[in-house]
């Protein structure tokens, strides 16, 4: 086969030869076609966005590109040369490297050690670390991306944003292995960053473009449009098109991703009436202080959704956990529906009618190997018991009712929850708090994290319904847009303090920029 490049040009590939090309890639898993003939072109010195809903095949494609997944058929070409990638090392030898979604640095090593880890080269002589050489090697890497991080700093003392820089510096070590400019894959790099850090990352991505190609994956379409030159859209394991980002709107991308025009009212803002009368106060926090927050005052009325926004380290997650009794408090008084709240344990919080949906769904939100039914009734055991005895029939009819009501897509109530898609898992976790009908306050910590747009929309609708029925909600949103779209009122937290209350009524919403000003 003749590659599209002109072979006479020799070692120096023609600038028009794609840095990376994927042709008709297919990968089957039992029962699922993860990749169903994907084509992808990454040009030299460009930032290519990759968009698609959960299950569109993004992760499988990325894994195939770094040798973690072997495709059933199809071809991968690197700079006009057909390659087989059977391991991360082989991919690195061809100049392809990936910054993984879950950060992969060793926290108690220095930045320098992490950067050269696994590719020490001259940093190790006779089996012994040469600290000075290693520091120099690491510094070279950091210089490439113009970072001023101290290579001798322990990684766990660095901010998330700095750690990401270290990861990028580390990935760029593949330049040592390959003759070509590298292709760097960034998988959801912004999911752990707050808005200011994201800007720094974007500056970095643009800098990378000078000497490398970048594949950028994110759930946040505005980010994709902001930082990428082109976007390739996947749907159902197939490539459905490409968009030049200049002049494109998130809605355009969204339409391609889901294959039809989505509802304009993404947050169901108009669909539910909110009464103009003053609402009955439900949650009242006075001077709440803990390890990472102090003197927080907050009021949430019945039927109100209050968003808390803040940068990483603002302490908002800890406030949420403290309210649920999962984080110690030092001072302050909290009342729920007029009664003083016992913050000493999660048991007490549950008894008071508080529900909590943790951000780490897979680790903290659900018990993966347990069934949908048992996960759903785990907390409100009274909903399936007569006295201390479990009534299997009562449980199954209750669970089936909620599966239908929330349209949870599961083969059976007895299916292990870990076999469900993220959106359906999250609905089960939410249902856990609803089955007994005694919920008064819901604490939602990034309830839509990692969900695709369709699933998000359903979670939003559920939140609206619950608010309508009088549940008070505290929302830590995944993005500022989400916080603005869903909240009736927004509280800005900064450095552990609630610094600003911003009204956020339907029809008169603040812009993200208004909020960012308050956050930093």
């Amino acid at each position, binding site marked *: 086969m003749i590659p599209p490049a002109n072979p006479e040009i020799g070692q120096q590939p023609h600038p028009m030869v794609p840095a990376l090309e994927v042709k008709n890639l297919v990968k089957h898993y039992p029962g699922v076609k993860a990749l169903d003939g994907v084509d992808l072109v990454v040009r030299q010195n460009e930032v290519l966005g990759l968009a698609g809903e959960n299950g569109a095949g993004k992760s499988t494609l990325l894994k195939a590109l770094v040798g973690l997944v072997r495709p059933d058929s199809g071809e991968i070409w690197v700079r006009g040369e057909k390659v087989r990638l059977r391991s991360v090392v082989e991919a690195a030898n061809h100049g392809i490297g990936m910054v993984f979604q879950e950060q992969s640095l060793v926290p108690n090593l220095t930045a320098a050690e992490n950067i050269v880890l696994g590719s020490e080269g001259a940093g190790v002589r006779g089996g012994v670390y040469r600290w000075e050489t290693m520091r120099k090697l690491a510094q070279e890497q950091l210089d490439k991306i113009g970072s001023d991080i101290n290579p001798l700093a322990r990684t766990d003392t660095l901010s998330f944003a700095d750690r990401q820089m270290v990861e990028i510096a580390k990935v760029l070590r593949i330049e040592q292995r390959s003759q070509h400019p590298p292709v760097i894959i960034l998988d959801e790099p912004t999911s752990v960053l707050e808005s200011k850090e994201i800007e720094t990352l974007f500056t970095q991505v643009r800098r990378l473009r000078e000497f490398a190609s970048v594949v950028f994956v994110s759930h946040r379409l505005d980010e994709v449009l902001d930082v990428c030159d082109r976007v390739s859209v996947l749907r159902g394991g197939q490539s459905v098109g490409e968009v030049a980002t200049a002049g494109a709107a998130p809605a355009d991308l969204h339409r391609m991703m889901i294959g039809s025009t989505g509802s304009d009212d993404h947050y169901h803002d108009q669909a539910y009436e909110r009464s103009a009368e003053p609402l009955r106060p439900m949650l009242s926090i006075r001077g709440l202080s803990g390890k990472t927050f102090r003197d927080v005052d907050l009021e949430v009325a019945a039927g109100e959704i209050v968003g808390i926004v803040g940068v990483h380290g603002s302490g908002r997650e800890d406030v949420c956990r403290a309210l*649920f009794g*999962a984080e110690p408090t030092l001072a302050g008084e909290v009342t729920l529906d007029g009664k003083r709240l016992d913050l000493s344990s*999660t*048991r007490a*919080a*549950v008894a008071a009618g508080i529900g*909590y949906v*943790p951000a780490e769904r897979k*680790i*903290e*939100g*659900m*018990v*993966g*190997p*347990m*069934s*949908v039914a*048992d996960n759903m*009734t*785990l*907390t409100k*055991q009274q909903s*399936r*018991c007569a006295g*201390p*005895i*479990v009534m299997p029939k009562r449980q199954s009819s209750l669970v089936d009712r909620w599966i239908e009501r929330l349209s949870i897509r*599961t*083969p*059976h109530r*007895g*299916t*292990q929850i870990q*076999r469900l898609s993220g959106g359906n898992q999250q609905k089960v976790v939410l249902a*856990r708090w609803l089955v007994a009908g005694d919920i008064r306050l819901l604490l939602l910590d990034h309830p839509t994290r990692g969900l695709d747009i369709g699933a998000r929309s359903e979670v939003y609708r559920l939140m609206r319904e619950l608010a309508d029925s009088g549940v008070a909600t505290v929302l830590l949103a995944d993005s500022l847009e989400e916080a603005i779209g869903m909240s009736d009122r927004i509280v800005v937290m900064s450095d552990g303090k609630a610094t600003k209350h911003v009204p956020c009524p339907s029809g008169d919403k603040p812009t993200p920029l208004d909020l960012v000003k308050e956050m930093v």
Partner: protein
Amino acid sequence: MSTPVIAQPAAEPVVVKGGPTPAQRLTSFMPVIALVALLAALTIADPDFLTQKSLTAAIRTSAPLVVLAAGATLVVLCGGIDLSIAALASLSTVFFAMWLPDLGGLTTLAVIAAAAGIGAIQGIAHVVLRIPSFIVTLGGMSIFSAVALVISDAGPIRVVDRDATNWLTLYVAGYIPMAFFVAVVVVAVIALVLKLTPLQSYITATGYSESAARLAGTPVDRVKVGAFTVSGACAGLAAVMLVSRNFSGSPTMADNLLLPAVAAIVVGGTAITGGHGSIWRSLVGALVITLLRVGLPIVGVPSAYEQILYGAIIVAAVALTLDRSKVLTIK
């Protein structure tokens, strides 16, 4: 051809129930298969083995092991481990021998209660001080052994009054040793309580993912303390069974049961990482271990090799059953 009066429903989508795959089903029956295979092998090696007399003898000796393994299984299901069971049982035999002259018929209950209390203290130490159960019970093991040695003057104490334990040497329906019958009843009662109450959910959730269980508002700490308490009580009951057989209490009487008990749990297929498993499995596991124990001399293996076998079985059983995809790092 006539058209059907009632419209045919559209083809039902294939409903994949979330149950176990055939391979998982097979592995879950493995302990039973192993038990039957072992029985067959021993019968081939010595045709006299498959007689009522030797089988009765075998299950009678298995009773303390069944009870010990059953109690410790609860702790393992919660994601912990109880290494103190054997030492606690030894200590309890000493308690029994020392208290019998004063307490008479109440001694059995007193010993079980004391062992349960000691188990509870270990559980509380584990939960409140947040020390790994492995360390708490390793410390407990050493302490109980030493206490037993001190209070017994480092020697066996004869039990003269045999009335208090005589009932355990009787037979149910003529053939089933009372001790074994009691052991099965204990297993059945614990299993039934778990099945009928939310405890099963609580234990499973705690074992698979303690943080998720806690954030779901389940009583994680109380469940764990409860598991250690039952484990202690079972050690106490096992001690009474041992005394009924040996007519004495001794500070090292049950010490050689720790490895067989752990082996019984893992051979039964209960995941050492917590969450997955059951107490019935440990009953089967204990029978497998007992058959090996009585079978080795039959096939001519010196009993000195026994410990090698237990060690190998534990490692092999965990190697076969551990789901490495769920354990990110093996520590």
